[in-house]
């Protein structure tokens, strides 16, 4: 399951990434395998989304979220 498929309020645990280059950036920002991610909101126009991860809030586009595979 991809992060982009979660609804607001749903939670998942990061398993792996499909885009190596993007994964480096995501991990630097605290999105690591094993971390719990909660979708906190979706932008009014449907994209991007805001997620809650390791104690803070990140925003990313759906296309970027789709590179994160959850358990």
């Amino acid at each position, binding site marked *: 399951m991809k992060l982009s498929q979660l609804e607001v309020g749903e939670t998942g645990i990061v398993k792996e990434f499909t885009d190596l280059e993007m994964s480096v950036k995501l991990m*630097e*920002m605290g999105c*690591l395998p094993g971390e719990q991610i909660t979708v906190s909101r979706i*932008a*009014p126009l449907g994209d991007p989304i805001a997620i809650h991860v390791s*104690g*803070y*809030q990140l*925003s990313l586009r759906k296309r970027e979220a789709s590179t994160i595979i959850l358990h």
Partner: protein
Amino acid sequence: MKTDIKVALVGNPNTGKSTLFNALTGLNQKIGNFPGVTVDKKTGILELNDGRYAEVIDLPGTYSLYPKSRDESIVFSVLADKSNPLRPDLVVIILDASNLKRNLLLYTQVADLKIPVIVALNMMDLAKKSGITIDVNAFAQKLGVPVVPISARKMEGIDKLKEAISHANKIALQADTIDVEALAPQLIAQISDEMQVDNPYFALQLAHQHETLKFLSPAESDRIEELEHEHSFHSSKAQASETIARYSFINDLLYDTVHQKATAHEETLSNKIDKVLTHKTFGFIIFFAILLFIFQSIFAWSAYPMQLIADLFVWAEASLHKLLPPGPLTNLVADGILGGLSGVMVFIPQIAILFGFISILEDTGYMSRVTFMMDRIMRKVGLNGKSVVPLIGGFACAVPSIMATRNIENWKDRMITIMVTPLVTCSARLPVYTLLIALVVPNRNVWWIFNLQGLALTGMYIFSLISAVTVAFVMKQIIKARERGYFIMELPVYRMPRWKNVGHSMYERAKTFVLQAGKVIIAISVVLWVLKSYAPGDRFEHIDKKYEQPQYSGMNAEDKQLAISSEKLEDSYAGVLGHVIEPVIKPLGFDWKIGIALITSFVAREVFVGSMATIYSGNEEKIESVQQKMHDAKNPETGQPVFTVAVAFSLMMFYAFAMQCASTVAVVYRETKDWRWPATQFAYMTAMAYLASFITYHLLR
């Protein structure tokens, strides 16, 4: 001044780095340039407790030493390049205590470069509030570096930090973090050997970043590339395994030194605020209300201080004329230079007000929500959520708005925003449009309530927004970005703005504008002033003599003066230039007199009205008289009126597109630090202006 040690501030974005920088250096700051990037180099002087002085440099906020943008690439090149004059003797790394895990990633990277480090642990109060207890002593011991808990906002712990800086070691004592060599053993060994590098992490960084590092020669960079192939080194893969290794080190460290109380996961205040501010309907309503408020204040409220500044300069010019003996030098100082200076100073209220607002929006965390909400629409046309503020600000004035684009992290988005912002109808175009519309559009209502003149003006405003968006879309396809566009962005917790920072940013921006863009603006205004105040040969004397003749003695003094200024402007160098460009602008419906107005209004668009007044011997104070004279103006060859509907709209189109603003050119140069950007912008806007005017003129003729 000569300083004893150099200190660099390094940290993640939103950790209070700038607040700490201000706390350490006060108003003792200098803004300069890093070569090749758009971010400002902020340095300041800090007096240490033992009487020595430290030079503090505020490096751009970054999450990692691997840069995702050009601005971030500065951090590594300053820290690592031994020949860089900015290379610090000591790094103060600021960590957000409430978010240590992610913050420590950058720490471990910097620590492995083996530069002496001090940790400033900021936001301890926030950490405490969210149930985090940090054993500072154990933490410091594990890292092997001094750790100073501070609160930059409340100015707590700053003295302790100063003390730690003055006692800092000259050699790096920090404990190792990860086994760097294990990441690429042979490659690191060979680079270290061939390039005489003694630090394995520096060698590894060279492998990753050699393509963009300016301190490597092309030969060295090629050699590293060769070595990478030889050892089949994959940069992204190596970065990924390094990051994972670093986080595992960090987890161990935090396990022993930090305890998080398991609190019931209650909804935070920030989340509640977000529910309203990024709401489907209220979110946009609130955002547009804020935009409207900002627009109103830079459009309308700044008019009072601006008028005050302008009046002050008029008074100063008059006083100088009284004080100094009459002559060309007095004219140059009083009219040319002081006039130019007035043109610079008059921007200060708008810049200060806009930056006051922007700094509040940034400081509270609202700006990143704006980006979050607007991203989807804006990215379609190649802009960024944050481009909205400069674009709307452009309706008041492009100068502060272009300065405001520096909040846009993505280089390409920022350049496009800078390129299109001057297309938006700024307040300087308003007098031009009102004059021309009043001249040719009948003042009557259609469909009862819509005034035709009002409709024409509204049309110009909407048209400008459409053209800005269209050009942005075209530029999105043309401009090549070297960096990949990410949108992964932190949404910081809402906080109260720090008023001191707000005031600071207003002051700094105004000062930078006056000092850096001011020179160009004054230079251009002086040139234009000379063009319209001097004539080849003794033409001006002839005019003066002509009006001394008896047949003019019946004229009243005011009319005579207006007639003299009119003839002088027509005979001046600007007039000569007007004749020179006439063949070029004739296809647009303009004669050489309009040419004079085009040339003189390059200093600022509203000058067009004043030039028209002078040319047609009208009094600028009585705009109706100018309109009447322009209305009556006839083409001497054809006997037809000069200002037909076609000519007036062609002129408006010209002003809608042309870069008729010396200050914008200067500020674009200052923000892009490369003459090619303002030159390209000037060229494309002039070309579009010409084309639009040409089409308009021939359609309406």
